[in-house]
C-alpha cells in the first residue's frame, strides 16, 4: 500500500513501514499499541510524526530500530523496509549492523539516555572504536569533530566531562553527535526537545534541520507539539491509538486538516492571527489500548461522530491533493474551514 502523499521513487522508498502491528503482552492483558501503521521516508526528507502521549510514536520508532523489548513487545505483522529489505525478516546480527550505521536514533531525555558513569567523549567515541574500528587517537579526533559539528563549545576540553556536567541542551547535542558518529542515512529524533527550555528547543531544532541538510540525511521527527514541526518538516503523519490517522504535506495540513483529531490539535495551539480566541482542546482521553473502541477509535471524542463511526473502522481516504485521512467524513472535515 504505497502512501499517495508523495510518489514512490523508481527503486522504492528509503524507509517504509507497512501495516505494522505491535502489541504488548503484560500481566494485565494485551495492549494493542500499534494497529497498522504505515509511513515512509525518502532520502533527504523530514517526516514529522505527531500524536498525543501513548499514541505509539516511540514504539514505532523502536520497532524500526529493532530495540523493542521482546517480550513484552511482540511484532504481530507488518513490514519495515529499508532500502528494499524487510528488516523484520533479518537476523539479530544483521539488524545490529544497521543500527547506528544506517539508522540512528536520539531520545527525549538525554540525561537518562546517556550512561552516567562514562565521559561523553568516551560514549561518542565508542561507536567509532567498536563499530568503525578506529584507533583510540583517531576516534578521539573524530569525536572532537563531531562535537564541533553539533556546536558544543570548547569540545576538546569537554571530552572527559560526564553527562551530568552538561546543561540539558548540551546533553542533547552530545546525543546527536553520538547518533551521527557512523554517518547514518536516517536519523530518528524521538521528542528531542521536549525536556528542554523553549529557547533551547529552538536551537536544537535549528541544529537538527541544518545537520539534516548538510549531511543529506533523512529525518523522522517525533513530537507531540505541532508548533515545533511547522518550519522543519516536509510531511506530517498524525498518530492516534496506534494508527496514522492523517498523512499530509505540512502546508496542506496546516491550511485545512482533514481529520477531526488533527483539527482539534491545530485548534489547541495559540494562533497569532486570531486575537483573544479561546483555546479549544480535544475533550476526553485517549483510549485504553487494551480496550480500543470499535469502529473509529476516535469516535468517543469526536465532534463529527455519527452512527457509522461506531460501526465501521474508517479506512484511509485519499483526498484530492494526494493526502490521506482515516475518517469517514474526511472531505467534509477538510472543507469545513470554520476554525
Amino acid at each position, binding site marked *: 500500500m504505497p502512501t499517495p502523499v508523495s510518489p514512490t521513487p523508481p527503486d522504492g522508498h528509503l524507509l517504509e513501514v507497512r501495516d505494522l502491528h505491535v502489541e504488548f503482552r503484560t500481566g494485565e492483558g494485551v495492549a494493542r499499541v500499534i494497529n497498522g501503521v504505515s509511513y515512509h521516508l525518502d532520502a533527504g526528507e523530514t517526516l514529522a510524526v505527531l500524536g498525543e502521549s501513548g499514541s505509539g510514536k516511540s514504539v514505532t520508532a523502536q520497532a524500526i530500530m529493532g530495540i523493542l523489548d521482546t517480550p513484552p513487545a511482540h511484532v504481530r505483522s507488518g513490514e519495515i523496509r529499508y532500502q528494499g529489505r524487510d528488516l523484520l525478516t533479518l537476523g539479530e546480527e544483521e539488524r545490529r549492523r544497521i543500527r547506528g550505521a544506517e539508522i540512528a536514533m536520539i531520545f527525549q531525555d538525554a540525561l537518562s*539516555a546517556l*550512561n552516567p558513569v562514562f565521559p561523553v567523549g568516551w560514549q561518542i567515541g565508542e561507536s567509532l572504536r567498536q*563499530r568503525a574500528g578506529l584507533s583510540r587517537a583517531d576516534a578521539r579526533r573524530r569525536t572532537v569533530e563531531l562535537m564541533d559539528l553539533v556546536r558544543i563549545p570548547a569540545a576538546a576540553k569537554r571530552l572527559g566531562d*560526564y553527562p551530568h556536567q552538561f546543561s540539558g541542551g548540551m546533553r542533547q547535542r552530545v546525543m546527536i553527535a553520538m547518533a551521527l558518529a557512523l554517518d547514518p542515512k536516517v536519523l530518528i529524533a524521538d521528542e528531542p526537545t521536549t525536556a528542554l527550555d523553549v529557547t533551547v528547543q529552538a536551537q536544537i531544532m535549528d541544529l537538527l534541520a541544518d545537520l539534516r541538510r548538510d549531511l543529506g540525511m533523512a529525518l523522522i521527527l517525533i513530537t507531540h507539539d505541532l508548533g515545533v514541526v511547522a518550519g522543519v518538516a516536509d510531511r506530517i503523519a498524525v498518530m492516534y491509538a496506534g494508527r496514522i490517522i492523517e498523512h499530509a504535506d505540512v502546508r496542506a495540513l496546516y491550511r485545512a486538516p482533514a481529520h477531526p483529531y488533527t483539527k482539534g490539535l491545530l485548534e489547541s495551539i495559540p494562533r497569532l492571527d486570531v486575537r483573544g480566541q479561546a483555546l479549544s482542546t480535544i475533550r476526553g482521553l485517549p483510549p485504553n489500548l487494551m480496550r480500543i473502541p470499535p469502529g473509529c477509535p476516535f469516535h468517543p471524542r469526536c465532534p463529527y461522530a455519527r452512527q457509522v463511526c461506531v460501526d465501521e473502522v474508517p479506512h484511509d481516504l485519499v483526498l484530492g491533493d494526494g493526502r490521506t485521512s482515516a475518517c469517514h467524513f474526511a472531505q467534509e472535515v477538510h472543507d469545513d474551514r470554520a476554525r
Partner: protein
Amino acid sequence: MLRFILRRLLQMVLAFFGTTLIVYALMFAGQGDPIQALAGERPVTAAQRAYLTEKYHLDATGVGGFFYRYLNYLGGLLRGDLGQSLTGRQIGDILAAAWPVTVKLAVIAMAVTILVGVTAGVIAGIRRAGVFDHATLVLTLLVLGIPTIVLAPLAQYFLGVRWPIFPPTAGAQPSLWALLLPGIVLGSLSLATALRLTRTSVSENLRADYVRTARSKGLVRRRIVGVHVLRNSLIPVVTFLGVELGNLMSGAIITEGVFNIPGVGFNLFRGIRTEDGPLVVGIVSVLVVVYLLSNLVVDVLYAVLDPRIRYE
C-alpha cells in the same frame, strides 16, 4: 574531595572519643568495686588491690576520677600502648597475633563472596525470572534465614566430623586450608546478600534508558552488558563489599568461637567471658578505628566509582 576527607577524619576523631568513652564507661563505671570488676570473679589479694589501685588511679573517685582514668587510658592508646590484659599479657601483642588470623579469614570469606555471590548475582540478574534466578533466590533466602550460630556448628559437624573433608577446628596457628570452611561459613551471609544486591542491580540497570541507547548504537550484547550495565550495577555492590570487608576485619565472634580460631573475635569473646575489662576495651577501641577507616575508604571508593557523587 580533599575537604571531604579532612572533614570525615575530624568526625572520625570525635566518633573515636565518643565510642571509646562509652565502652570504657560501660566496662568500668557504675561498678560497686572497680577492682573486683577488673579482676572478674577471682579473689583479689591486698597486694593486688594496692597495685591495681595505683595502676588505674583508682584513688581518685567520682566523675572526675573516672574521666581522669579515661584520659589516662586514652593517652596510652594514642601512644600506641593498649595496656595489659588482666592475664598480664600486652594487649598489643594479643592483637598482633590475632589480627593476621582474622584478616586471613576475612579474605577467604570475601573471596568466596565475590567469586560465587557476585558472579551468580550477575547471571541471575541477566536471566531474571529464569530457573537459575529462582534457584538462587531460594538458596539465598535459606542462607539468610539460618543464623551463623546454627550454620557454623552444622557445617562443622557435617563437613568436619561426619564427613571429615575439612579440619573441624583450626587450632593455634591455623593454615589457610584449616580456615577455608570457617571462611565459607563466615562469607555465606555476605555471599547471599551480595548475590541479591547484584542481581537486583543488574536487572534494574538492564532496563535503564542508557541500555536502549547502547543498543541503538548497534553495540554487541556482550559489550552492552559487560561494560555499560556491569559498570553501573557494580557501584552499590562494591560499596556493600567495602562495608562488609570492614565488618569481617573486625573479627567474627561466633565463627571464630565455634571453629576455635584464635582471631580478634575469639579474643574479644574470651575477654567478655572472663570479664577482662582492659582487654575488651582495648580490642573495641582498635575495632572502632578499623571500622571508621573502612567506612571512609568506602565513601571515597563510592565517589571514585560514581562520577555523579561529589562530596563537598
